[in-house]
């Protein structure tokens, strides 16, 4: 019961720290999800192209980002980006760029796999009717691929939210950093850790529910 008492005490005193941390997490997540998806969609177009170089480029990009630890990638962008760009960059900006680049690789793979999972017979039928490649993608392949892509993409979004906790390594204002802040002020580790954990759990559970409802609705109109 000591833990609960301590948690209540800490929450009453430091709730604003946790809530502003949550705001940071949500904000970073939203930006990562939005730009990560945008970049991922653009990337997923590369292997559809007839140009051979694009395939190699895509494979290299995906291989590199999925083959190295995300924390390493965060360090890389945190160190390299301020040197590479002539403008002042905050830690938060560097971390967001790294998260966006990392997630774009996973999103692109989800989309590519979703397109590839559409039965090849559909492509053949569309071709045999004389549909142009563009019309085939728009009217035949993509509408079917979307049903494969959306559920997997929902899970990807949830992963992105959890990965924003890595930003705490660079003291970017978010929920895991809130835990560190409260810990160093109160010299108590477990209670603030549990508080942060509960907040993550609530947010992610709610989002999973949302993704599941959406998935169910997609299946209903299948």
């Amino acid at each position, binding site marked *: 019961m000591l833990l609960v008492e301590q948690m209540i005490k800490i929450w009453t005193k430091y709730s604003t720290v946790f809530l502003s941390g949550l705001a940071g997490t949500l904000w970073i997540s939203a930006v990562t999800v939005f730009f990560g998806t945008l970049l991922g969609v653009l990337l997923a177009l590369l292997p559809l192209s007839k140009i051979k170089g694009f395939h190699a480029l895509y494979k290299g990009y995906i291989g590199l980002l999925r083959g190295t630890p995300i924390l390493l990638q965060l360090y890389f962008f945190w160190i390299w980006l301020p040197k590479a760009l002539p403008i002042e960059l905050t830690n938060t900006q560097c971390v967001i760029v790294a998260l966006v680049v990392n997630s774009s690789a996973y999103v692109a793979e989800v989309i590519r796999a979703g397109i590839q999972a559409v039965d090849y017979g*559909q492509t*053949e039928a569309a071709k*045999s*009717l*004389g549909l142009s490649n563009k*019309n085939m993608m728009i*009217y035949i392949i993509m*509408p*079917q691929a979307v049903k494969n892509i959306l559920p997997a993409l929902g899970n990807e979004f949830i992963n992105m939210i959890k990965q924003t906790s890595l930003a705490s390594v660079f003291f970017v204002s978010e929920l895991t950093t809130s835990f560190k802040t409260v810990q160093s002020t109160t010299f108590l580790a477990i209670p603030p850790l549990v508080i942060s954990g509960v907040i993550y759990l609530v947010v992610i559970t709610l989002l999973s529910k949302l993704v599941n409802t959406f998935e169910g609705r997609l299946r209903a109109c*299948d």
Partner: protein
Amino acid sequence: MTKDAKPLIRVEDLCKQFHELTVLKHITEEIREGEVVSIIGPSGGGKSTFLRCLNLLEQPTSGKVFFQGVEITDQKIDVDRHRQKMGMVFQHFNVFPHLTVLQNITLAPTLERGLSKAQAEEEALVLLERVGLSDKRDEYPRKLSGGQKQRLAIVRALAMKPDVMLFDEPTSALDPEMVKDVLKVIQDLALSGMTIVNVTHEMGFARELSDRVLFMDGGIIAEQGTPQEIFGNPQNPRTIDFLSKVL
């Protein structure tokens, strides 16, 4: 069909290789206007690959394919436009599951023939009536039986007003009681004067309906002739062997 009808499709020295495997060996052949040609033969003999080379769903390794006098194997040419005139029906139907029966038919005509939605629907309804699917117009394909899906696939191809219909084992994936309905549709089509190339295992159908039968084995057209010649008096030992197994 008259003997001196114009060639609609001409194939010159067609070869197809999949990696090390040679599937078609130097085939030269013609399909004439209004002709009904059945292609029979053992599995792996190259029947389907030959058919799929006619509308370039398979890219030939070498050789030329002419359609209505135009070389469609020419890289510079827009093959999509020529494919519109070559309807194709597949063993596994390949209807579009996310579109209704009516949308399955109207999609290509509205996109590629420039028809308005109303015009396309009007034409589609006539076609659906012809194959007995009028009451299914607003259903999704998952509600259809195999035979109904295949009839839908046939009218979907017909909606592009093709000059030839290519059938790739159209009844092989059907339950026996569904085969008849589909064969009836193909038969009506043949009687209406449509040029047809039909890869089939339905020997009775090939015998009754065809002007010409091609027997393919080992990547070549091993023997060809009228149905009477091929089924009544085959010459090639491989044809004799094959027919003795399937008849």
